[in-house]
């Protein structure tokens, strides 16, 4: 079973539906016992980093996610859920993340040339970097996925699995052992996105 971490932020309808569409059992829940019993976890998220990080801590689910990841359970953070995996975010201040992937989250305005629209919204191409990442096993270089974000991870080159070009390369996906993150939305990226979720559901589980 895939546990979708429900900490009261965002709408999980599309995510839940996308697992149903690939025939994977998934459940959105905020129950720590259910999440710890799940085979894999999805950490979703929309909105502001600070609010989401606070909600994750106040519900006690930050510890659950961290514990599950440390025990080797495959974890996929999506969009803001990916940003939460890092050490720190500089979105309106300085806020600690879960520290599961080394790096920090900064405004894309600091990286891209002036004049480009922010947020970076729409379909953009993936360019893979480093060793082949298991969740992209069914993808081809240049496949398109759907992005909506104004912040992106930096300083995580050693763990970057894919970048996308928006005036400059932006971190599109990261991979650190059993922990994965996509800045884009697989659940809104058509067949390509469903292929990523399917591959995630079939990643090796070493220990839970």
């Amino acid at each position: 079973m895939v546990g979708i971490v429900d900490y009261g932020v965002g709408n999980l309808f599309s995510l839940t539906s996308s697992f149903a569409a690939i025939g994977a059992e998934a459940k959105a829940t905020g129950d720590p016992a259910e999440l710890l019993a799940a085979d894999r976890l999805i950490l979703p998220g929309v909105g502001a980093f600070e609010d989401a990080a606070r909600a994750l801590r106040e519900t006690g689910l930050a510890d659950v996610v961290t514990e599950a990841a440390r025990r080797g359970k495959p974890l996929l953070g999506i969009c803001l859920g990916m940003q939460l995996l890092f050490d720190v975010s500089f979105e309106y201040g300085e806020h600690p993340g879960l520290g599961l992937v080394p790096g920090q989250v900064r405004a894309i305005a600091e990286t891209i040339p002036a004049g480009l629209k922010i947020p970076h919204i729409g379909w953009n191409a993936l360019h893979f970097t480093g060793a082949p990442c298991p969740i992209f096993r069914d993808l081809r270089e240049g496949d398109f996925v759907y992005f909506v974000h104004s912040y992106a991870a930096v300083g995580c080159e050693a763990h970057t699995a894919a970048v996308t070009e928006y005036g400059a390369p932006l971190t599109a996906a990261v991979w650190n052992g059993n922990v994965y993150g996509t800045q884009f939305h697989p659940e809104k990226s058509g067949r390509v996105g469903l292929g990523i979720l399917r591959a995630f559901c079939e990643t090796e589980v070493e220990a839970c």
Partner: protein
Amino acid sequence: MITKRIIPCLDVRDGRVVKGVNFTGLNDVSSPVELAKYYSDVGADELVFYDITASAEGRRLFTDILCETARTVFIPLTVGGGINTVEDFDRVLKCGADKVSVNSGALKNPQLIRDASRKYGDQCVVLSADVKRKDGEFRVFAKGGREDTGLEAVSWIKKGVSLGAGEIVLNSIDTDGVKGGFDLEMLEAVSNAVGVPVIASGGAGSIGDFVTLFTSLPRVDAGLAASIFHFGEVAIPELKSALKARGIPVREV
């Protein structure tokens, strides 16, 4: 580079797709769920569901259709029509919508844009404006183009962006349904005035109209149309090939 988006719009009344010409003379075309799935398969980048239902029963049919669509179609869905309160946002977001477009509701109460963007984020709030030339200016019309608000379009749209609208749909009443091409003059005025994505609507009649749109106005991010897609006059794969051949970045499936 980010691609230009092609967006079919499904006008839905009582759970069925309809499309008017200059907002009158509606024809039933097809099932929204089937049409949405078809468009997703052939490469539509996004879908807009526009609820033109007046009754509570029709509204319930609409949300049922929306939920059913979101269970089978995994591209961004925008919902508009009858959005007057933050509760209306909640109602459609729970059924799988990703963005919500406001029009008359925001004209009545501009604070709706601020309240919704604070709650759901700017990326969730699309400001849709029906605009027509009148007395030498671009004028915003409400209630599906029937009521002159007296507001000048560029200043209204800039205000909407400052309140938190993350995207603009600019529908030219002057070119809508005419199939003579997008309203380039109006689109240029708006796209030069705002820093958020602008979606062109109203007037597309051929593949060439989209090529002209994106080559002459690089600041326009997307093209939206309805009947030319529904009646097969423009096929999305051919449209994308034509755009690609002209060096315009598009997503091919």
